[in-house]
Structures are given as C-alpha cells and as structure tokens.
C-alpha cells in the first residue's frame, strides 16, 4: 500500500514536471532602479562610472550621443538582444543625478529587470569606490 502511494506521488510529480516544462511565451519586463544624487562630483565622473558599470555587467557600453551622459548596454541571447540597461547622468547642483532603467525579455533572460538594475547599480557603486578609494557613493 505504501509502495503504491509513493508510486502515485512520484507519478504526480512527473506529470507536474512535464506540464510545468511547457514552453512559456515571452514577456517584456521593465524596471526603474533607485535614482541617486552625487554632490561635489563632475558630470564626467558619472559618465565614466556608467561606462564601467555597464561594461562590467553587460560586457558593453555605448553613449547615446557623445557627451550626453546617456549610456546603455545590451546582452544578447542567440544573437537577439534580450537584456538592456540604461544609465542616465544629469548635472544637478554641484554634482550630478544618475538613474537606472532596465528591460528584459523573460524568457530567455534569467534575471528580472529589477534584478538586472540592482546589478548595474551595485557596479556603479563599485566603480565609485574603486575610483575614489572611499566607501562608495
């Protein structure tokens, strides 16, 4: 009797696994990361860190117009872009404001847009730490 129950449970799990493995249709997931204001730093500092952060996370970084401070990077899956991250720098007071926007196609992206933005924000912070030797921004 116990053997039969175990077999039944195993069969149920196997059935669930088969059904759950159904290919899902892709959807677009977009998120805005936490914006930050960095006082007392030049605009060029933001651009440099945006470049480094995107290169670290996305393996590439492009500025949408020279000197614009609007940077983006993309990760491709099977030759098609499936993850995009944008870092925007803007002069503010004696420093700058920086914002982060991410969009991913799920599947195939393993990350949500929010998770991708968290990585980029962390990399931007790490770039700040590396550049200043301080505790971050």
């Amino acid at each position, binding site marked *: 009797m116990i053997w039969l129950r175990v077999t039944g449970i195993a069969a149920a799990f196997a059935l669930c696994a088969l*059904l759950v493995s159904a290919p899902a249709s892709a959807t*677009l997931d977009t998120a805005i990361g936490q914006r930050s204001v960095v006082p007392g730093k030049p605009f060029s500092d933001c651009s440099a860190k945006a470049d480094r952060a995107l290169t670290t996370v996305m393996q590439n970084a492009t500025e949408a117009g020279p000197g*614009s401070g609007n940077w983006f990077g993309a990760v491709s899956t099977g030759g098609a872009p499936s993850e995009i991250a944008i870092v925007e720098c803007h002069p503010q007071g004696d420093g700058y404001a920086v914002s982060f926007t991410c969009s991913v196609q799920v599947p195939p992206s393993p990350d949500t847009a929010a998770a991708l933005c968290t990585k980029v924000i962390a990399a931007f912070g790490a770039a700040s730490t590396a550049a200043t030797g301080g505790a971050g921004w």
Partner: protein
Amino acid sequence: MVVRRRNLFAAALGIAILLTSAFAPAAVDLSTGIRYVIPTGSLDECNAKAKTALDAYLQSATQTSPNDWIATGPLVQVGRPDTTASATVHCYAYQNGYVVTFSCFVETPNNPYDASALCTDVSHNFNGGPQTALTTPTPMPTGCTTANLIGTWQNDNDNKNSLKMDASGELTDSDDVIGSWILDGNKAVITYYGNHNMTLSADGKHLSGSGYSFTRKC
C-alpha cells in the same frame, strides 16, 4: 537634432537603436536619447505631463519614485495578453526648469510598432508635437487557419478528450489539465503529458503526430 524655440529649448536626440535582427525569433528593441530641456517650469508640471503622455499610448502609468515614471502595454492587447511594450520618463530639476528624458522598449516581432515610434509619440505628446497613431495589434485569426492552433480540438481516438488552445499559447483539456502549444509553419510542438511533435494539415483542420490525431471544430 537640436530644436530651438522661444519658450522651449528642446535637445531631442532621437536615437533609435534597432538592436534586433530581422531573422531573430524575438528581441528587445530600444529607443533612448530623446531629451528636452525646459528652461522654466516645475517638477510637478513635468510629472503631470509625463503621466498624461504615457497614459496616451500605454497602460497604467505609474510613478515608481519621485520624478520617475513607467508604463507598459501596448494600449490595446487583442488576443495577446503579454506585455510587449514599455516606456519610462524621468524628470530632473535643472536651473529654473527641468530636464525630461524618454526611453522605450518593445519586444519584436511581437509588438505591432517599434520602440522609436512609441518614444516619438510619447515625447511629442509631452511637448505638444505632432503624433502619429500607433499600429494596433491585429486580432489573431480564428477558425481553421494555418496561422495558429487557436480553437477546440477533438481527439479522433477518444471522444471524451478535447483540447482548447488559446491565443496565449496555452491549452486546456476537458479535465482542466493544462499544457501549451507552439506552431512554426505547419510544425507544432504540443506540450501535454510530454512534448509531442505534430503536423498541421494544409486546411488547418487536422493535427497529427506522435501517435495522436486531433480535428479542430471549425
């Protein structure tokens, strides 16, 4: 491109970056770089206009944090419930006015318009520029079409077994067991108690393979 007006200095760098390949199955298309510098105005004004602009072309514009806005869509989702488009608007205080930026993302080829068209319309709605109506999704054909498997399919070998296949790619049998379907040309993959490779007939009415045979009610 830089456009100067008496009350508005608009630095609109409309950089549409088509990051997709025509042969790629699906990809994210990006448009970013449209940026207006408004010399006089408040952030409240920017936020109000951002919400209005996003709501004009997408659904449920939401303020994720002060001065940051996001919306998803498309506005009309006929038979396609998944999100295939989104846009963000950021407002920044700048001198006596503000700077506003726009970024758009669409999933190609599943969205009826590209990211550039979306961002152009959203940004033009913001500043009162000319707008072009975006293409709305074409309703999926139904009946015995060869374009999809939407409909009710009767198992030819079991009159108690039928499958309802919907526009989202999901199928449900007569016992509410769910699975999925994908159609590429006339080749179908039916995930229902395992994956089954099947073939759709030229009249769109018969689906057979892997020991199964179904007839569509149409």
